[in-house]
């Protein structure tokens, strides 16, 4: 009998209700709540990304509304132009150097400082706020401070005296990008400390007590309990720091005056600005952008594979 009913049910066309459920899910109200953000994502992320990909395969320039312009499909020409441009290749190497310094430094400092802040009793709020202030301060204002510190006649060189580097920090091809990496690390640190502080609340105190009874010291507890305990956040910090770093623009633009010295601190986004906005070649700029997105996605995937193997 049951078999007969099942046969009948299977043969019957799905009702309107079941089709709606299949389409909208069991809680259609959720779509209503998610809708505005989906529209936001579609308008401000999906559409521009799609447009950038489309532009990168065409000869494209910004034109007045109604102007008769030809925008032919050019295949991979823009990508060939980009990959054969020494300035673009250099910018990717520069940002690679930046990430190699910035990302590990960010993770290590943020975790260590968050752990230290988590254990202090006095002045906790003051210290948290202090680390967070650079993050919420405009880069333009902070750059002025760093120029005061690291320029030729800046405070750092005055303190170093004869040991000051020559050429000075910001006009030294070997030091300009490390200085920028340090600047960005310092500026962003407050945000990542907050992420780690939140994660640390989820690590059970009993684990530390048990480790202490077993004779583990602070360093052993940190390495064996804290580091694995906040691993999901470490993945997040790595990905966010990489994305932020890959979008480097303000610092080369202001701190080293347009990617100087001699292009040692240009970044892909800075070259995109030059090619796309200043020189009127958004097709080439879009190709750089698409390559950058792919590279960042690949790096993020590697992070996830390596850190979330379990």
């Amino acid at each position, binding site marked *: 009998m049951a078999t007969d009913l099942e046969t009948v049910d299977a043969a019957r066309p799905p009702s309107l209700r079941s089709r709606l459920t299949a389409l909208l899910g069991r809680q259609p109200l959720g779509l209503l709540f998610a809708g505005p953000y989906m529209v936001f*994502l*579609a308008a401000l*992320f*999906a*559409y*521009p*990304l*799609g*447009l950038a*990909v*489309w*532009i990168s395969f065409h000869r494209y*320039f*910004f*034109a*007045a*509304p*109604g*102007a*008769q*312009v*030809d*925008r032919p499909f050019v295949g991979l020409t823009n990508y060939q132009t980009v990959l054969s441009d020494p*300035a673009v290749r250099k910018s990717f190497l520069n940002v690679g150097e930046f990430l190699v310094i910035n990302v590990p430094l960010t993770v290590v400092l943020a975790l260590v400082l968050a752990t230290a802040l988590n254990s202090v009793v006095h002045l906790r709020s003051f210290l948290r706020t202090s680390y967070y202030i650079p993050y919420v301060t405009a880069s333009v204002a902070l750059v*002025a401070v760093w*120029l005061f510190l690291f*320029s*030729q006649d800046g405070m750092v060189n005055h303190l170093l005296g004869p040991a000051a580097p020559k*050429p*000075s920090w*910001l*006009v030294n*091809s070997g030091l300009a990008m490390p200085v920028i990496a340090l600047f960005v690390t310092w500026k962003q640190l407050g945000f990542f400390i907050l992420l780690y502080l939140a994660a640390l609340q989820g690590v059970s105190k009993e684990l530390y007590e048990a480790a202490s009874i077993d004779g583990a010291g602070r360093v052993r507890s940190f390495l064996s309990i804290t580091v694995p305990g906040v691993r999901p956040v470490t993945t997040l910090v790595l990905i966010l720091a990489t994305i932020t770093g890959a979008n480097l623009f303000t610092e080369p633009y202001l701190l080293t*005056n*347009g*990617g*100087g*010295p*001699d*292009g040692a601190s240009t970044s892909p986004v800075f070259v995109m600005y*030059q*090619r796309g*906005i*200043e*020189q*009127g*070649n958004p097709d080439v700029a879009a190709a750089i952008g698409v390559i950058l997105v792919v590279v960042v996605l690949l790096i993020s995937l590697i992070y996830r594979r390596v850190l979330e193997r379990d």
Partner: protein
Amino acid sequence: MGMLMRSRTIAATFTALALGMTAACGGGSGGASTGALTAKGPIQVWLSNNPEEIAWGKAMVASWNAANPNELVTAQEIPAGKTSEEVIGASITAGNAPCLVFNTSPAAVPQFQKQGGLVALDGFDGGAAYIQARTGTAADQYKSTDGKFYQIPWKSNPVMILYNKDVMTAAGVDPENPPLATYDQFLATSRKVVSSGAAQAAIWPAPTSEFFQPWFDFYPLYAAETGGTQLIKDGKATFNSDAGAKVDNFWATMYSEGLAPKEKYSADSFADKKAAMAIVGPWAIAVYGKDIKWGVVPVPTSTGKSADQIYTFSDAKNIAVYTACKNQGTAWSVLKFATSTEQDGKLLEMTGQMPLRKDLATTYPDYFAQHPEYKTFADQASRTVEVPNVSNSVAIWQQFRDEYSSAVIFGKTSVADALSKSADKATQLAGQP
């Protein structure tokens, strides 16, 4: 479940991307809306954002509006942005550019023209004739490659060497007649300034990598050395030459000996007396005149040409009619009004900038009699060189600057290699659409 979720996420991502690309394909070109060249009515204009030009612009507009109540002009400063060119370029794309911009950079004109943002002034009744009658043969530098005028040459700031007399005196240099005519003299004077400690730098041109920086170090000296040759002539780069090498080597010596610093000064080095000299136009008189005892000489040449033989960079700003303008007839009338003998005189009076008209000194003899300090600049204004009006102008200047930075400022590559590489690239870019 996880696999299903991931598949859905990937599918959603690609759907969103596809939607974006589909929407992108739908955008783009359409029919041009150039507006009627003879249409009359209210118009909007943008002014540069320095106080002197705003004051002149408002007075000019008030004067026009009083006489033309049916064709009212509304003026505002160019909206804030990294550069005026970026703002204008964006407004062309958005279709909300004003009718006239009294700050159109000649270097940006090819790009604006390519965007379909500019109206050819030859289309107005007597357009080209008016421009040529006002500016003379110098107007030809502002013609586009199709032979038309998409800008009216408006005003120049011919670049010269301004020096601080007190600093020169402190350095043991005759402040009334400092030896700055030849490269050797300029270098010797610079060495005296720096070694005496009279100033930290002899001169401090911005050693930064913006595309327009060559206009204030290489290009004025190149114009002087070559007797008025543009960077590109007949579609080919001209600077891979003996003259180009001499100019590059001069600046390379200034940088390598520390006479010109390699790091940007974050304020005004001349105003702060950190540099003995500055390479500037006549606008500087109003800015420095009260606080600094200054003198002015033409830019140096290798052989020390006489002042009346020396060319320099014009640093001109022009006026253009934009295609978004509906009442282009009024725009053209306002443009002619704003560049009339009377308004040019007021511009000169209020800003110290030189209207780009032939016989400037004889047109306004009273002004120059009352302001002799501007006479030298007015004389120089008759011998100026503009940036070449070629396609990919900004890209050409940017790659030139990059090579120059590498060879001249930072000494990483040889001057000969930099000039050769840059010239090849410039010629290639000038030949592209």
